[in-house]
């Protein structure tokens, strides 16, 4: 008993490590579901998110599948829910907390939900229509009121005009009488008619012109603008209206005017014939408007009540409908067995989860009260399973950036656990600044500490979501940037002097090299040849004196270029070494000798030797022989050209060693090119007879299933196809050899040329860190230093906006822009230079059937 827990712990630990290093072992399983309990079993599986279903009816049209009616019902319910959500959003009602996880409703409960939803839809529709009618009514009454009020002012205006005795040529008999004086008109026998109403502001000029053209002066139009904006009942937008009054006489003119008014969509209202009538109408309107307002308020309140009540359960319904629809989709993918009583589903399942799968099926059967339980059966298969790599919230970010290049082939080595450290490290080499790294680290730490805050998690802003998902990556990048900033001795472009510089200016004076009176604006160089000037290397990073020197870049460039090359060659060699994991796992041991060894020898003999030369020159060439220190690059080139006599050797015996290394590297190329295809060819031809013997043994076995299982087992272990070849496949083997040879030739050329180009590609580590340092220095010199130079008291005030500008530019240019740039380049170095040494990335990702992973169309529309 005591021993078992520990062993389980160890196996769990190895299982987890194996999972992140390599991916889980997957198997194909068949589920036999009783028709009564199929729904519940699939619901259980959806809650757990264990398996990925395969479509067993791929040739069936989606309209011919079995459960198409249920899916149509679900979509109808989703439509109603969408309408509800839109209304709720329009009314600005907030939805309650979204922590609930309701269970899938049984098919018999679906009807109740459907009824509820339909009732709600009808009710909402009615209330909304009523409200709209009321609002239209209200608008009409308001317009009428405005019209009456404004036309009254026409009356008053023309009453004043009487005194002015305006002459109208066409109507000389009108000058004395007010237009509104009906009695005098009646005396004349003319039938004066009035049409009054409202028209939109933009149309009034056209209207006037049309009236003039058609009626030729038999009408008089007067109009005035309404001050306030009225709401257009159709569109709900505020529009400006104009009240007009047309007086005309003659019936025919009247009809023409009416037609024109119709044409211009005027709202016409009856014109009161006398002042008393006008006052009565105004009073009546006022009371009616008040009543309407009350009714409208009550209607709006009622609508809000209905919506609030609906909003309490709308989220539950959304999830329930989503789950139901998903289950019916899955049921459509299953097929019936021969007896038509049992549903068969094929799933991809991790081998370690088969017990959990069994338990889930038992639970589902129990819930549905079935007498016969559903069970699972493991199937052997030759298909490649999808790749599952289990991650937690920390590793998922790094796994995502690896998967963005390509999901790993089934059971091949996953670069993600190494990327967790090497990616932030390479980023930091390009970003290296203590201050900027600290800011990046702090902002990522804030995001990590508040990661459970709902508002941060559920925003819709895409850019924020990207940064939030990568908060652990940014945290690591900031942390490593602090370290590399310390080593580069760069903090907002200034250096820290913690241990005391290794260079001494005093010694130059004491040894009488420099005069004690230094005049002029020149630049003097310290000479490390003189004793006491150079006291030893700075113990932590780059010496702070280099920040003050004018030939700083000469030194830093040489240092950073060599550093980039060293880091690059080590990173690539690590990648080559990782390929051994793949060779060993897939049981292709010949790859170790025929592919891995030549690759490693080629890289190390040439570029490893370059690293050795760099280190040798650093260690053994002092300033005393600086005059004749050889250039590493020229030496390296001469090695290839085999010209060693023109240059001073780096060390004794160099010529012989270089020739030896060059020969080994050159010999490894044909081994890499021809070794594997020739070996495989020899294996197939040589063991031809062996294969037949083995085939004879196998035929003697009794069940075909065992044969199947054995072959599947071999497949999983990764033995090559050549092991059970039979005579019938002789032709395909020939073809395989040409294929194999071509593949290997391409690989060899790619690898050998890639070694050179990829090594040079790592020089971007130098280039970006130089760019970052220079940008930082320019920002300091152009912004901050100017603010610090003013030494009056005004300078203190001036410093505040200067610092603000400095901070904004630092964050936007140096942190965001340079950060994104370094991120991208570090990513490229991983994807291309590191991963092409061992990673193929041609797999398919495992997408389990899980309710929590299903997207909701409402969230996408922003309704939830």
């Amino acid at each position, binding site marked *: 008993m005591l021993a078992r827990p520990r062993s389980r712990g160890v196996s769990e*630990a*190895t*299982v*987890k*490590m194996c999972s*992140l290093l390599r991916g889980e072992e997957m198997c194909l399983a068949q589920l036999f579901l009783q028709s009564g309990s199929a729904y519940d079993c699939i619901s259980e599986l959806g809650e757990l998110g264990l398996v990925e279903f395969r479509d067993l009816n791929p040739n069936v049209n989606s309209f011919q599948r079995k459960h198409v009616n249920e899916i149509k019902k679900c979509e109808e319910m989703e439509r109603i829910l969408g309408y509800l959500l839109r209304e709720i959003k329009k009314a600005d009602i907030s939805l309650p907390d979204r922590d609930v996880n309701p269970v899938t409703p049984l098919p018999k409960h679906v009807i109740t939900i459907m009824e509820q939803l339909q009732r709600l839809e009808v009710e909402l529709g009615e209330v909304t229509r009523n409200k709209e009618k009321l609002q239209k009514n209200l608008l009409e009454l308001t317009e009428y009121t405005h019209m009456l009020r404004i036309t009254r002012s026409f009356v008053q205006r023309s009453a004043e005009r009487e005194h002015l005795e305006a002459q109208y040529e066409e109507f000389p008999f009108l000058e004395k009488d007010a237009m509104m004086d009906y009695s005098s008109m009646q005396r004349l026998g003319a039938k004066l008619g009035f049409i009054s109403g409202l028209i939109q502001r933009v149309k009034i000029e056209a209207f006037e012109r049309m009236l003039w053209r058609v009626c030729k002066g038999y009408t008089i139009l007067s109009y005035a603008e309404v001050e306030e904006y009225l709401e257009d009942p159709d569109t709900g937008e505020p529009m400006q209206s104009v009240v007009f009054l047309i007086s005309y006489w003659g019936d025919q003119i009247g009809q023409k005017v009416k037609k024109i008014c119709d044409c211009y969509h005027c709202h016409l209202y009856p014109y009161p014939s006398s002042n008393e009538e006008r006052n009565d109408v105004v009073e009546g309107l006022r009371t009616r408007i008040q009543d309407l307002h009350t009714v409208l308020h009550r209607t709006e309140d009622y609508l809000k009540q209905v919506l609030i009540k609906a909003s309490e359960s709308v989220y539950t319904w959304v999830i329930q409908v989503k789950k139901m629809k998903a289950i019916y989709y899955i049921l459509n993918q299953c097929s019936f067995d021969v007896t038509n009583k049992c549903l068969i589903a094929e799933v991809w399942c991790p081998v370690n989860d088969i017990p959990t799968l069994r338990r889930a099926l038992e639970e589902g059967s129990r819930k549905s009260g079935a007498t016969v339980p559903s069970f699972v059966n493991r199937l052997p298969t030759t298909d490649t399973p999808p790749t599952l790599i289990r991650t*937690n919230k920390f*590793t998922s970010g790094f796994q995502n950036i690896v998967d963005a290049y390509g999901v790993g082939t089934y059971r091949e080595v996953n670069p993600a*656990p*190494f990327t*967790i*450290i*090497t990616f932030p*490290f390479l980023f930091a080499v390009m970003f290296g600044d203590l201050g900027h790294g600290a800011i990046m680290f702090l902002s990522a730490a804030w995001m990590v500490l508040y990661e459970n805050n709902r508002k941060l998690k559920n925003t819709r802003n895409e850019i924020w979501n990207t940064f939030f998902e990568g908060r652990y990556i940014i945290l690591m990048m900031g942390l490593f940037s602090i370290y590399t900033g310390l*080593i580069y001795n760069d903090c907002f472009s200034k250096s820290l002097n913690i241990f*005391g*510089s290794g*260079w*001494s*200016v*005093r010694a130059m004076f004491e040894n009488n090299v*420099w005069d004690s009176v*230094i*005049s*002029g*604006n*020149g*630049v*003097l*160089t*310290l000479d*490390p040849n003189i004793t006491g000037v*150079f*006291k*030893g*290397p*700075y*113990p932590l*990073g*780059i010496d702070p*004196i*280099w920040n*003050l*020197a*004018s*030939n*700083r870049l*000469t*030194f830093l460039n*040489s*240092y950073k270029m*060599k*550093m980039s090359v060293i*880091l690059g060659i*080590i990173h690539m060699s690590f990648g080559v070494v990782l390929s051994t994991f793949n060779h060993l796992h897939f049981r292709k041991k010949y790859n170790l000798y025929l592919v891995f060894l030549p690759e490693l020898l080629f890289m190390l003999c040439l570029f490893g030797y370059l690293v050795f030369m760099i*280190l040798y020159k*650093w*260690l053994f060439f002092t*300033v005393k022989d*600086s005059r004749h220190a050889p250039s590493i690059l020229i030496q390296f080139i001469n090695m290839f050209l085999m010209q060693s006599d023109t240059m001073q050797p780096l060390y004794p015996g160099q010529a012989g060693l270089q020739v030896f290394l060059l020969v080994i590297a050159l010999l490894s190329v044909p081994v890499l090119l021809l070794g594997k295809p020739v070996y495989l060819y020899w294996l197939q031809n040589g063991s031809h007879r062996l294969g037949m013997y083995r085939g004879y043994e196998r035929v003697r076995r009794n069940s075909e299933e065992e044969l199947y299982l054995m072959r599947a087992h071999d497949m999983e272990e990764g033995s090559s196809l050549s092991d059970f070849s039979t005579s019938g496949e002789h032709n395909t083997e020939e073809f395989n050899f040409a294929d194999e040879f071509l593949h290997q030739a391409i690989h060899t050329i790619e690898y050998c040329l890639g070694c050179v180009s990829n090594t040079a590609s790592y020089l971007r580590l130098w280039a970006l860190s130089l760019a970052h340092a220079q940008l930082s220095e320019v920002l300091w010199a152009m912004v901050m230093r100017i603010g610090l130079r003013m030494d009056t008291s005004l300078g203190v005030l001036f410093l505040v906006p200067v610092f603000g500008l400095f901070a904004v530019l630092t964050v936007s240019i140096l942190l965001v822009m340079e950060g994104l740039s370094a991120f991208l380049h570090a990513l490229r170095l991983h994807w291309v230079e590191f991963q092409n040494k061992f990673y193929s990335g041609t797999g398919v990702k495992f997408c389990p059937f899980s309710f929590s992973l299903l997207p909701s169309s409402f969230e996408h529309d922003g309704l939830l």
Partner: protein
Amino acid sequence: MAEMGFAIAVSVMTLFWGIVGGVVPWFIPKGPNRGVIVTMLVLTAVCCYLFWLIAILAQLNPLFGPALSTDTIWYLWYHWP
């Protein structure tokens, strides 16, 4: 004197990153994340130690010195030891 300073720096850093990469992994408790944490520790130790080592080796035998302006020289003459 210079060599002693160099020797101290090298031994301190080697010891520190050696502990981080070689000793601490043995104390990580057994759990599902043990493998990842050990990988992270070893890789961190290797990367950081290598980076520091390159920086110090590049400065061990400088072939030329810094070129300072006369103002800077005057300042350093008076303020630095």
